[in-house]
């Protein structure tokens, strides 16, 4: 099933809106992580518009799909997409990272807001998503569980514990989307700690693993369709992305991992994104 041009345009528009929201949220909070979620915006938009079965009307349906943001620091992107879905009130985005806000600096589980798991400490998301997928399998539910991860997070040993057991239990209802932008906090991945070929690694662990251009919406959609058709193995989409994508002065720069834009930078970024 290929995307119609109309659907493709819709996803592109959502991705652009997510990017605008990320810049505005991180700027308003005067802190946070803009680079990662900007890079993930295209695959997050494709996933949530076309594949994810989480809607305002089914939030409390136990059989609905689940989502875990393994690389929790990129939550500005998750909050933006949940706002697009009408699950988080748009007004609430302004409270990101502020006292009393449910939109914490790293996601905190909140059944009312569609936040299915608390994350923040890298390495734990794949395990929790696996537990959800296992429960759905035990119950015979159609639930699919999507979890994001990253190249940096793949340095955590627990990721490979979970990769081992998810394959062992044949959790075909589990899909991980790995944001591979070649950047981690301390610099370029190859210099800090090279995780090498993640597709090969996941495949060696018994997963259905695919390399995909993380900014090619049609390719992402096709990979997500392939994951849904897989019946025996969990799927790993290694999404090759550019950190800071869409904001020229942030693209490819490790320095934008966890720094908020100042007023002038935010203005410039929003001008670029609104073109």
């Amino acid at each position: 099933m290929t995307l119609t041009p109309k659907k493709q345009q819709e996803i592109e528009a959502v991705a652009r809106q997510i990017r605008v929201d990320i810049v505005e949220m991180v700027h308003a909070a005067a802190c946070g992580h803009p680079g990662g979620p900007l890079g993930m915006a295209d695959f997050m938009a494709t996933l949530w518009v076309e594949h994810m079965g989480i809607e305002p009307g089914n939030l409390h349906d136990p059989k609905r799909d689940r989502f875990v943001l393994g690389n929790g620091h990129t939550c500005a992107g998750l909050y933006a997409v949940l706002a697009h879905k009408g699950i988080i009130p748009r007004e609430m985005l302004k409270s990101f990272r502020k006292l009393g806000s449910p939109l914490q600096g790293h996601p905190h589980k909140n059944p009312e807001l569609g936040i299915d798991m608390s994350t923040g400490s890298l390495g734990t998301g794949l395990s929790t998503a696996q537990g959800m997928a296992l429960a759905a399998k035990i119950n015979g539910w159609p639930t699919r569980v999507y979890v994001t991860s990253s190249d940096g997070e793949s340095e955590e040993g627990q990721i490979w514990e979970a990769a081992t057991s998810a394959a062992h239990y044949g959790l075909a209802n589990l899909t991980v989307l790995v944001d591979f932008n070649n950047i981690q906090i301390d610099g370029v991945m190859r210099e800090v700690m090279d995780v090498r070929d993640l597709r090969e690694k996941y495949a060696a662990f018994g997963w259905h693993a695919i390399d995909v251009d993380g900014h090619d919406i049609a390719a992402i959609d096709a990979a997500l369709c392939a994951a849904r058709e897989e019946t025996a193995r969990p799927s790993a989409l290694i999404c090759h992305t550019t950190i800071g994508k869409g904001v020229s002065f942030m693209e490819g720069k490790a320095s934008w991992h966890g720094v908020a834009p100042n007023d002038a930078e935010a203005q410039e970024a929003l001008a670029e994104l609104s073109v």
Partner: protein
Amino acid sequence: MAQANLRYFGLPPSPPLIGARLRPPQGTRPALQELLEALGTSEYNAGPDQRPSAGFFRNPSLPIRRVTSTLTPPAVQVAATRDAYGVALAELGKDNPEIIVLDADLSGSTRTKTFAQAFPKRFFNMGVAESNMMGTAAGLAAMGKVVFASSFAMFAAGKAWEPIRQTVCIPNLNVKICATHAGLTVGEDGKSHQMLEDLALMQVLPNMTVIVPADSIEAKLAIRAVAAHDGPVYVRLSRAKTPVIFDEDYVFKIGRGTQVRAGNDLALVACGVELSAALEAAEILAAEGVNARVINMATIKPLDKDILVAAARDCGAVLTAEEHQAIGGLGSAVSQLLAHHAPVPIEVVGVRDSFGESATADQLLEKYGLDAQSIASRSRDLLRRKNA
């Protein structure tokens, strides 16, 4: 204040327990007998030279301590709390189809194998990967399952501490961490396996409830209570067979301490295997004219404030005993509570800032000052401070 029904604690009732019921094992009721049989419990009818000191895993080759060898040897029934865990889990599996059990390649030792054999579709071996096991447990719980996750205490509480914090306690999920082989009584495996820091690591976590059953009867009741409780729980269980203390009429409630011996000269507050030692110490002290109150503090968190404040006010001195570091466990929790609400002289009996070593359980309890004689001795110190 709750007063426990005492079944047996290894020594004859002298002086008689006020309000407590001490019955010899000959009077065992069918229900208890059934449990003991299910647990494969042995009954000692040893002579004066080889009976366990209060059933305390005594190595027959060791010299019997004078004070206990003069007492009439009773029959002592012993059982391991981990065995009771296995039995309780298998029973709960019948009642609640939502119960899922995870283990990290130690199901034979932790006794989750009993459940695995009865309910193979609801048991998942996660391999030697404790952190992933805790995260998986959290995910299952987030979907509505009641999840029991087991390993040795060292690995469950130690190795997987941070995933427990992030994935179980922060989202406040219904995961029951039942950790066996806690403390020095692991014995010969030595310090790498003798978890003496788990109570500190677990009670410091918000949302976590921490329980240390004193015997197999209490362990079984605690597991039932834990299954019905909504939220994260850590249950500390032992490898070694320890004396069966409670009667099957005993009522366990999370967060409630129980007085198991009346007295007003000082209060001995103990948990886990140390309850037997405290009861034996109370008898040693009784022979010296000191009447010790003994309290079983099975729930370390939340602490039973009422029973502790009453003990401090009535007795004026409190000794705590645990098979754990003296820093960060029961003693720390009780001290902190009483410092606020009823300051009295306190003596904390625990391992004093050191790791253990390889030896028999009984040798280790003696060497590290956790046996009845040590508790009696520290009680005398405490009484001197109280009366100074």
